[in-house]
C-alpha cells in the first residue's frame, strides 16, 4: 500500500502491464515527450522508449484506427485520447470497427485494446470540452466501458482492462487526477464487471459513477446527519453493468437515486432506472429518482457551470423526496 494520486495509479498500471507484456504500447497526443497533457504518462517515454510510448499527430480517427489494426494484428494498444471529447471524431473506428470486428469476422479477429483518457466536464472548459461520451459507448455491444472513481480502482481496473481481450473504453476524470488514496503496490487487479459498495446503508441506494461517487458520498454524510442511512454503489464497470449488486441493495433499501454528471435523456441513469423497474419493481416503495447534469450545453461562466452540474444538495434533496422526507 502507498498513498498516491489517481494519476500515479494509472501510470503504475500502465507501467506494470508494459513490463509484463511487450505487446502493450501507449499512443496518443502528447503522451511521450510532454509526459501527457495531464501527466498521466509521466516518465513512460524514458522508461520504455519511443517505440512503445508514441506521440501522434492530432488525428483521432487515424490513430484510433491504427490501434484497431494493430490489435487485430496481435498487439495490445493503449490509445490515449487527450480527453474523450475528442473521441467523437474516432467513433467510427471504436464502434464500427473495434466493437463489431469480432462478430463480423465470425470470431476470427478480436480487438484487444484500451481506449483511455479523461472524460466529463473538468472545470470551466465550456460546451465542446464537456461531453459525457459514456452515454453513447455503453449502448454498443462489443465494447466494455469502465469508469474508476478513486486511485485504487483506477489502478486495479486499468490493469484488468489492459489484460482483457476485448475493447475497453476506459474513462477517467480530470478532476480526480490529483485525488490521493491508498493503492496496493504491484499486482492488483479488479475484475471488470463488478460493482463496489462504497458505503453501506439501510435506507436508500444511491448509484453513482466516476466523479459523482464523491458527490454521492458527501451527500450520504449529510443525509446521515439528517437520519437517513444511504448505501452508495459505484458500478465501476458501466458496460456490462453489475445489476445484481444494485438490485440486491434496492431489495434491502426499497428506494433508489441514480446520479450522473452527463445529460439525462438516454443517460446511464435512465438505463439503471429502467432495470430497477424491470427487475426490482416490487421492491420499490417509491419511484427511482435521477440526479443528472442539466439538459443544456456546458457554459463557461462559473455560476452557470455550477448550476449545470449535479450538486450534493440536489442529491440530498432527491433522496429526501424518494424517502418521503421532502
Amino acid at each position, binding site marked *: 500500500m502507498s498513498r498516491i494520486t489517481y494519476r500515479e495509479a494509472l501510470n503504475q498500471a500502465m507501467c506494470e502491464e508494459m513490463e509484463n507484456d511487450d505487446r502493450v*504500447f501507449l499512443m496518443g497526443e502528447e503522451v511521450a515527450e510532454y509526459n501527457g497533457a495531464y501527466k498521466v504518462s509521466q516518465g513512460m517515454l524514458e522508461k520504455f522508449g519511443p*517505440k512503445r510510448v508514441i506521440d*501522434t*499527430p492530432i*488525428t483521432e*480517427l*487515424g*490513430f*484510433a*484506427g*491504427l*490501434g*484497431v*489494426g*494493430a*490489435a*487485430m*494484428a*496481435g*498487439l495490445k494498444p493503449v490509445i490515449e485520447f487527450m480527453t474523450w471529447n475528442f473521441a467523437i471524431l474516432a467513433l*467510427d*473506428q471504436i464502434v*464500427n*470497427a473495434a466493437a463489431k470486428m*469480432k*462478430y*463480423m*469476422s*465470425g*470470431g*476470427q*479477429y*478480436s480487438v*484487444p485494446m484500451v481506449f483511455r483518457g479523461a472524460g466529463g466536464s473538468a472545470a470551466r472548459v465550456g460546451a465542446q470540452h464537456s461531453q459525457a461520451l459514456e452515454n453513447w459507448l455503453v449502448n454498443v*455491444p*462489443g465494447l*466494455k466501458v469502465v469508469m474508476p472513481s478513486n486511485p485504487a480502482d483506477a489502478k486495479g481496473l486499468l490493469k484488468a482492462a489492459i489484460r*482483457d*481481450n*476485448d475493447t475497453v473504453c476506459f474513462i477517467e476524470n480530470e478532476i480526480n487526477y490529483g485525488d490521493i488514496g491508498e493503492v496496493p503496490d504491484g499486482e492488483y487487479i479488479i475484475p*471488470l*464487471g463488478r460493482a463496489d459498495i462504497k458505503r453501506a446503508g439501510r435506507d436508500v441506494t444511491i448509484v453513482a459513477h466516476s466523479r459523482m461517487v464523491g458527490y454521492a458520498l458527501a451527500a450520504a454524510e449529510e443525509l446521515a446527519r439528517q437520519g437517513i442511512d444511504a448505501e452508495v454503489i459505484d458500478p465501476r*464497470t458501466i458496460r*456490462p*453493468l*453489475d*445489476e*445484481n449488486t444494485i438490485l440486491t441493495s434496492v431489495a434491502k433499501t426499497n428506494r433508489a437515486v441514480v446520479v450522473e454528471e452527463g445529460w439525462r435523456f438516454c443517460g446511464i441513469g435512465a438505463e439503471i432506472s429502467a432495470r430497477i423497474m*424491470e427487475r426490482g419493481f416490487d421492491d420499490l416503495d417509491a419511484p427511482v429518482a435521477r440526479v443528472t447534469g442539466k439538459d443544456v450545453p456546458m457554459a463557461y461562466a462559473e455560476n452557470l457551470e455550477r448550476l449545470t452540474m449535479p450538486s450534493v444538495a440536489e442529491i440530498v434533496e432527491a433522496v429526501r423526496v424518494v424517502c418521503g422526507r421532502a
Partner: protein
Amino acid sequence: MVAKQKQVKAKGLTHEGRDYSAKTLHEMHDMMLYIRRFEEKAGQMYGLKKIGGFCHLCNGQEAVCVGMEHASESTDYVMTSYRDHGHILARGSDPTAVMAELLGRAGGVVKGKGGSMHMFDVEKNFAGGNGIVGEQVPIGIGFAFSSWYRNDGRVTICFIGDGGVNQGAVYESFNIASLWKLPVVFVIENNQYAMGTSIGRASAETHLFKRGISFKVPGMQIDGMDVLEVERKMSEAIAHARSGEGPIIVEAMTYRYRGHSMSDPATYRTRAEVDEWRSGRDPIARLQQQMIGAGLGTEESFKEKDREIKKAVAKMVKDAEAQPEPDPSELWTDIYCDPIEGAYPYPGKVG
C-alpha cells in the same frame, strides 16, 4: 512468389524484361477467370434472392487483386472495402466458404455473420471486408504499425476506391504512415465511379496517385487491366515498402463492368464507354492473347479451361447451398472474448 519467378521454366514468357513461368501465368489466368465466373454466379444467386443486402461485384477488376496476390507474400496483410470477393478469392480462401457467406450459411468464411461486405480470413491474412468507406485505411496503417513494431518484414496492402480516397481518414493515415515510414502500399482501385459519381465530379485532383504528394507519399499510376503490369509494378511498390522507405500509392486504372451493387442499373454510363473497357481492355482476354502468343495455350484450351471452371463453380455453389443456416445460438457468440458472467448476455434471460 517473387522467389518462384526466379526459377524460370523452359516455357513461359518475358514481359517488360520480367520472366513469368507457365505455371504462374496459368495461375493468374485461372484465378482471374474463376473470380469472373464466381461473381457472375453470385449475381445470379442474388437475382434468385438467395443472396440479400448489398452485393458488390468486381467483374472487370480481376487483374488488380490477382496481380497484387502474385506480387505479395502470403504473410503480407491485405484489407479492402466491401467490394471484397475478388480479393479474398485471390488470397486463396476457400471459394465454397466465400459463397456460403454470401448465402448466409454456417460454413461461410465468417460463419454467415458478415455477408458480402464483411469477408475475413485470418489464416490468409485478409483483414476485410469493411463497409464504411475509407475505414480500412486507418486499420491498414495499424497492421503496418504492428510490422514496424515487431520488425517482422511484412507489408500491408490496403485497397481503397476512387470515391473512398476523398475521406479525411485517408489523409490522416497518409501523414502518419509517411511520418513513421510504415511498410504499407495504398492501392487505389480507380474504376472511375463511386456509385453514380464519376471521379471528376468528386475529386479536385483526379490523378489519384498524386494524392500523397502533400504528405510526401510517392505514387504511381498503373494499368489495372493488365495483370502482368499489376504484378510487376506491385512488386516494385511492395519492395519499396518492405525496404523501410515508407508508404507508396499505386493507382490502378480499372473499370467495373457491372453496376455499383446488384441494385444499381448503372444508367450513368454510356454503353460505348462500358464496351470500350469490356471488349477493348478485358484483363482475362488480354492475358489469354499474350499466353497464346507465347504458345502457352490456344483459343480451344482456354475455352476448355472456362468449361472446367464453370463446372467447378457450379459444384461449389451446390456445396455451399447444401449448408445449413448458422445455429441460432451463434447470435450470442463472438461478441466478447471475455464475456462477464452474470452481466452478459444482457438482458440475462435471453440466449
